[in-house]
């Protein structure tokens, strides 16, 4: 039976010697691929087994020097322009070109290419959960075999290194980070209306009621994002959970030590639900929340006259606002306030996200590029261009282009409690089900129990594997 989807575990033990010999000849005597396959077929290997074997050879040996590496990412447009600016000095110094391929359907393309034995040299994943999955399947190259780990430890806080580690080996470095404890507002509007920036959740709801009471809409919200719709709402719930139940519970939730049907999770959903379904908080809710793109939803607080006053989403929202309203001044025209305190013990808790750099092949190009990307110098290039938050401690805060970006970065680095966004470190299947569940819940809050049960069902299957 075709077995392309599994490693060649079916290699017969008594054939192992000859297979070993084949591998040795390929790696040391420079057998051509064609010769390799002819020999492999003669040994009775299937096409798939042989190609998996070949891929494995490519992964462990590194005799040949490469002059270019392929990198798969979700970055396009101005993000890709900035990344190209980052790698330009690298290419100039090393002579190794970096071929960037971008797709917004990264999971599917990467899964297909790995299973089809044609992985890219490197990939930049938006979710460490995917990295953990690939590491457990033995698809990734351990980075600590060539990185100077003392330098890595000096540059990154321990939680970041832990997140990139699987079974004691470092597989990922964190590159482009996001602070997800940011609520966006217009200081100008707050001032002219006499609104106070809320410090606690009670103050936040009081302010919301005050605005709603004056016949205006306090909140803007939009969770539409094509096939990934629902993720902005899951960010809400993760941030609420951390502020409400604290880091210990959060860790247990993420590791599925407590079930999704637990009271603490239900409470977090309901806390979010009071904003999403609140007393005339959002124009056109719940339909408008589901139908509006997360980017479009960031505009209403900054229109003249404003159509809403607050919007929650990660620090990348600044990019949407400045593109749509280029005349707004950072700090006065638009700004963010920190997610308010729910349980006083967990004051200042911050969730965040980050894209991670992982390697699927071990060659000089990959090693040099990862080593370069880890440095503060490489990250500072993008920091200065804007739209980039670094978690590298050696990146100087003064490099950020404006006060908003700088405040966001310092909040992220200095947070007393920091946790990675829950969805991004869960198994991808759980994250997907959670996103879908958020849509169902926003549309009809009475379905909360069945939504949580559905996610729990997927979680039970995903965590056991």
């Amino acid at each position, binding site marked *: 039976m*075709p077995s*392309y*989807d599994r490693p060649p575990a079916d290699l017969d033990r008594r054939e192992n010697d000859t297979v070993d010999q084949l591998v040795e000849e390929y790696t040391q005597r420079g057998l051509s*691929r*064609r010769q390799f*396959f002819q020999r492999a077929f003669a040994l009775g290997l299937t*096409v*798939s087994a*042989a*190609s998996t074997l*070949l*891929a494995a050879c490519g992964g462990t040996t590194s005799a040949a020097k490469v002059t270019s590496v*392929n990198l*798969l*990412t*979700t*970055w*396009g*447009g*101005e*993000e*890709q322009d900035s990344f190209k600016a980052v790698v330009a000095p690298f290419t100039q110094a090393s002579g190794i070109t970096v*071929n*960037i*391929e*971008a*797709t*917004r359907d990264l999971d*599917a*393309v990467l899964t*297909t*290419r790995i*299973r*089809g*034995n*044609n992985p*890219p040299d490197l990939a930049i994943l*938006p979710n460490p959960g995917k990295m953990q999955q690939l590491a457990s399947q033995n698809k990734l190259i351990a980075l600590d075999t060539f990185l100077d780990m003392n330098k890595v430890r000096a540059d990154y806080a321990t939680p970041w290194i832990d997140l990139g580690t699987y079974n004691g080996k470092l597989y990922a470095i964190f590159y482009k980070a996001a602070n997800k404890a940011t609520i966006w507002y217009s200081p100008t509007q707050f001032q002219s209306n006499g609104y106070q920036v809320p410090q606690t959740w009670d103050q936040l709801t009081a302010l919301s009621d005050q605005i709603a009471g004056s016949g205006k809409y306090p909140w803007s919200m939009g969770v539409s*994002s*094509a096939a990934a719709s629902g993720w902005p709402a899951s960010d809400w719930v993760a941030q609420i959970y951390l502020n409400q139940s604290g880091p210990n519970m959060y860790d247990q939730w993420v590791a599925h030590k407590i079930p999704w049907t637990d009271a603490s999770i239900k409470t977090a959903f309901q806390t979010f639900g009071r904003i999403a379904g609140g007393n005339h908080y959002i124009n056109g809710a719940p339909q408008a929340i589901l139908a509006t793109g*997360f*980017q*479009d939803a960031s*505009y209403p607080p900054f*229109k003249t006259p404003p159509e809403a006053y607050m919007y929650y989403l990660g620090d*990348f929202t600044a*990019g*949407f606002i400045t*593109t*749509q*309203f*280029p005349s707004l001044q950072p700090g006065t025209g638009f700004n963010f306030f920190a997610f308010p305190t729910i349980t006083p013990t967990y004051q200042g808790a911050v969730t965040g996200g980050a894209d991670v750099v992982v390697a699927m092949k071990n060659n000089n190009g990959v090693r040099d590029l990862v080593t370069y990307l880890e440095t503060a110098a490489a990250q500072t290039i993008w920091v200065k261009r804007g739209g980039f938050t670094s978690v590298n401690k050696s990146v100087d805060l003064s490099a950020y282009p404006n006060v908003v970006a700088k405040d966001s970065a310092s909040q992220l680095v200095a947070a007393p409690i920091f946790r990675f966004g829950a969805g991004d470190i869960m198994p991808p299947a759980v994250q997907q089900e959670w996103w879908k569940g958020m849509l169902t819940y926003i549309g009809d809050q009475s379905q909360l129990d069945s939504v949580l049960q559905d996610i729990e069902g997927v979680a039970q299957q995903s965590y056991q594997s």
Partner: protein
Amino acid sequence: MSTIVNPEDSSGLPLDVAGSNEPAAWAKAPPPTSPGQRVVRWTNNGILTFIVVLIALIWSVPTFGLFVASFRPASATQSSGWWNGLVPPWNFTIENYQQVLRAQDMGQAFINSLIISIPGTIIPVFVAAFAAYAFAWMKFPGRDWIFLTIVALLVVPIQMTLIPILGIFTAAGITGSFLAIWLAHTAFGLPFAIYLLRSFFGALPSDLFESATIDGASHLRIFSRILLPLAVPALASLIIFQFMWVWNDLLVALIFLGGSPERAPMPVTIANLVNSFGSNYEVLTAAAFISMALPLLVFFSLQRYFVRGILAGSVKG
């Protein structure tokens, strides 16, 4: 009979794509009638034309909206409907087009698209023509079942084949080459091409082949001298469809050209213009029109093969 189309069995297939140059005789040249009837007919024609214009307009509105939006600045597109761009004060810009055309490698991507699409269209059409001829005009055991299996495979979602095929290509060492993507497009295009051509070939009357048989012509001769000329309209429409599908393909290119961005076709390069949040999607408005230009050119240039009469003329001789 003045035409070869048999009234009992006119499964005449794509002979015409954008309309023949001459109107259908029975519709447009009414027989002599009284003045009163002529007025009725004229009014009917007026109503008919009105309905057709209406349908064509409704069909064009969404595309027209895209066209207008492609000339509006991004912030305007986000905040007001495209129709607002039609009233003064006009605020048109070619920035979206500049952004697409300025993009690195767009010229190379256009050439790559041609390199992919031309063989990706011609190979499957020819392979299918041979097979369709055999399925329609030869008898061999299991013929219908083989045909049925091939056409049934039309229902296979492409996503299902990607991993196994990529495995084969990688084993053969051709992943990332143009050859790989030509082979893939040939395979994906074959079932429909065989189905369409077999339907067309099968509908031709057998007397066509009669005289050739008597002359002792070989299959190959019949195929190339009689069938292919007759099938030009069918082949032309098949070429249009296949070309459009290959030209606009993103998924197959993304997977099988993976690792060779220097060979990326236009859809891949265009996808690179959109950031990971999909928030600058306005560039896609301009990109859609730029990438549509060539398929439409192919469509209009092949139009002349759809003239009614090619079929009848070649048969009568």
